[in-house]
C-alpha cells in the first residue's frame, strides 16, 4: 500500500485535483487527510467526524482554488479552536480558450502557458489550426466555437478565460453567445471600438442583455500601448489577472497600500 505522500505525489504528477489537509496546531500535529476530487479520502486527522467536515470544506476550497488554515473542534465542530488545519488545494490548471487562429493567438497562447493555463486554440479553418503554428497549445480544435463550448462550456469557471480573437462578426457572435452561457471568469473579444459597436448591435439583436454585455471585455487588455502580438498578449493576461484579483491596475508607484 502506498503512503499518503506517494498518493499525493502521484495525484500532483498526474495533474489530478487533490487536497492535502494537515493538523498544524492542537492534538495530533502532522496528521494528514488526503481528499481527491472524486471525494475519495486517504488518511485521517484523528476522528471520522473531523475527517468528514474537513473533506467537505476541502472540496469547497478546491472549487474556489484557495489554500488556508481553518479551525475546528476535535470532532470537526465549527466555531471552536481546538485544532488548526492547513488545507492545501491543488485544482486543475485554469483554462484559456482562444477562438481564432491568428497571429495574436500564437503570442497569447505562449504568454498563457507562462502563467500556467491549459491552452486550447479553436478555429473552424483547418489550414490555420496547425501544430506547426501553435506548438505551445495543449489542444488544437478544428470546429465552430459554439460547438466546442457545447462540449466543454459546462467545465468553465471563475479561474478560466475565453478570448475571441477572430474579429469577424460571423465567428465572434456565436462564440460570444455561447461563452456568455458559461460561468467563465474572463471573456474578452478583440477588435477596434468600431468593430465592437457593430458586434454589440448584433448581440443585442440576438437578445443579449446589458448585464451580459458588461461581461465582455472589448477592446480587450489593459491600456499599456502594446502594438505587437507579444505586447498585446501581455496586456491581455495583465487584464485577466487584474479582473481575478479585483484590482484597478494603475501604476504601483502612483498608488499606496498593500501590493500583494
Amino acid at each position: 500500500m502506498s503512503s499518503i505522500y506517494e498518493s499525493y505525489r502521484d495525484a500532483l504528477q498526474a495533474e489530478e485535483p487533490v487536497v492535502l489537509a494537515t493538523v498544524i496546531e492542537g492534538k495530533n500535529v502532522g496528521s494528514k487527510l488526503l481528499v481527491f476530487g472524486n471525494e475519495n479520502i486517504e488518511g485521517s486527522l484523528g476522528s471520522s467526524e473531523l475527517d468528514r467536515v474537513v473533506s467537505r470544506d476541502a472540496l469547497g476550497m478546491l472549487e474556489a482554488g484557495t489554500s488556508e488554515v481553518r479551525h475546528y473542534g476535535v470532532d470537526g465542530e465549527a466555531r471552536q479552536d481546538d485544532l488548526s488545519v492547513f488545507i492545501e488545494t491543488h485544482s486543475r490548471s485554469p483554462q484559456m480558450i482562444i477562438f481564432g487562429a491568428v497571429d495574436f493567438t500564437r503570442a497569447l497562447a505562449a504568454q498563457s502557458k507562462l502563467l500556467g493555463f491549459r491552452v486550447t486554440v479553436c478555429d473552424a479553418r483547418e489550414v490555420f489550426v496547425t501544430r506547426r503554428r501553435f506548438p505551445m497549445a495543449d489542444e488544437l480544435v478544428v470546429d465552430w466555437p459554439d460547438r466546442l463550448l457545447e462540449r466543454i462550456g459546462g467545465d468553465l469557471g471563475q479561474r478560466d478565460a475565453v478570448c475571441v480573437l477572430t474579429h469577424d462578426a460571423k465567428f465572434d457572435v456565436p462564440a460570444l453567445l455561447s461563452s456568455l452561457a458559461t460561468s467563465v471568469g474572463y471573456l474578452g473579444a478583440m477588435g477596434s471600438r468600431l468593430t465592437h459597436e457593430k458586434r454589440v448591435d448584433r448581440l443585442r439583436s440576438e437578445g443579449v442583455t446589458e448585464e451580459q454585455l458588461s461581461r465582455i471585455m472589448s477592446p480587450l487588455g489593459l491600456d499599456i500601448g502594446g502594438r505587437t502580438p507579444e505586447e498585446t498578449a501581455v496586456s491581455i493576461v495583465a487584464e485577466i489577472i487584474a479582473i481575478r484579483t479585483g484590482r484597478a491596475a494603475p501604476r504601483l508607484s502612483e498608488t499606496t497600500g498593500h501590493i500583494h
Partner: protein
Amino acid sequence: MNEILADIERWRSAGQRIAVARIVDIEGSGPRDPGAAMAVNNLGEVAGSVSGGCVEGAVVLEALELLEGQRDAGITSFGFSDDEAFSVGLTCGGTIHLFIEELNW
C-alpha cells in the same frame, strides 16, 4: 509543492531524510501564497522557496534542527525586519507562518 517533487524524489531514492516547510498563512504583504513549499534534506541541500530569499536561510536551520531532533514539527513565523536589526524577516513588512515537518508520512 509540484516544482520540488523531482528533488524530493531524488533524495528519497538516495535514502536521505527530508524536512518540508510550507507557508500556511500570511499577514500583510508577502511574496508567496499559502501552499508555497521548500524542502531541505539532511545534507542541507535545498529545493524551492517560501519568500523572495528573505527567510530561506533561517528555514534551512530550522529544518536541520527538526531532522536532528532538536525541535518538533510545528509552526514557525517570520515577521518584519528592519535593516538595522539584522534579524531574519521579511523586508516587505508582512508576516509569514510556516509549518515545518519531516516528510515521513
